[in-house]
């Protein structure tokens, strides 16, 4: 275990690192044009980060991940209600586990 001094040192350093990433990205944005090809890619960046974040999780969940993902996708596209989609996706996963399907 850490001494109290080391614990606070870790807290300080992780805080600086994480804020540094956010601020660094924000400052880099100043040098990237918001039009043309660069702007086009930047507009799509949030969606690409999110997809990259969640794809391996869905993959690991196997067919239940694919089915629940499909439910979430369809509800989002048809109704535009992301929270409803999230809740029904969670219910599908919970129900599959309860029924012993996974």
């Amino acid at each position: 275990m850490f001494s109290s001094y080391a614990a606070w040192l870790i807290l300080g350093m992780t805080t600086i690192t994480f804020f540094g990433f956010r601020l660094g990205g924000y400052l880099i944005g100043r040098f990237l044009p918001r039009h043309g090809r660069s702007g086009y890619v930047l507009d799509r960046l949030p969606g690409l980060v999110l997809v990259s974040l969640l794809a391996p999780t869905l993959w690991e969940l196997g067919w239940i991940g694919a089915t629940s993902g499909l439910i979430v996708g369809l509800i989002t596209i048809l109704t535009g209600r992301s929270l409803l989609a999230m809740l029904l996706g969670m219910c599908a996963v919970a129900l599959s586990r309860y029924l012993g399907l996974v």
Partner: protein
Amino acid sequence: MFRNFILGFWVGLPVSAAVGVYGLVMGIQAATQNITWLELMVKSFAVFAGASQIVVVEAWGSPIWLLLIATAAINLRYIMVGLTLRPILNKSPWPLRIIALWYAADENWALTLARRANNLSTGTGFLLGSGMAVLACWQLGGQIGFSIGANLPDPTSLIKAFGFDFAFPAIFLALALSFVKSSIDWLPMLVAACAAIGFSELIPEDTDFQNFYILGGTLAGCIIAALSFADKLDKTIVEVN
């Protein structure tokens, strides 16, 4: 600004409830690792990066340099988070920009950008408000988990039984779909997903670089998006002619 803040807080609450569940797990882990209540409280306020906080708590006692590398690797994606927030924060005063950047977590960041895609008035106030909702739930979950401590036998099983482990993939998927504006946007998304899965399978799980799949997937998607930009221009020219 204030109205947007309240709106952000209100809209962000349901998503933040899922964050609270993970805060609960983190708090329970912290109670078993000799972390003090004050250290946990300050960490949640100052660091405010869920996944890395869980890693820090789990690896508490490892060499400091290892902790820093592991947590930095997990959070490299926040460079991209900062990058995408520029149009939103650009006109706000610097102190507000700093606070908004500080409390830009995955959930409120994605929520804000998804909302802004359809409503340009969504700005710093909304980001901050939803960030405060995430912070409140994260703190609440963490403190409850810390109080319960080791008395709860297996919190992970409970989370799985109720499907809470699917909350983040589900909300992220729903929010990601809101960034699809035309059929041409599907290809970069698909490539990013496949590349992220490929990287996560290729990088050994027990290394500090496991989370690099996020960067790998995003970069692959960006390359395809950049290439498809030319296609889009060609199609526009054909349509105009």
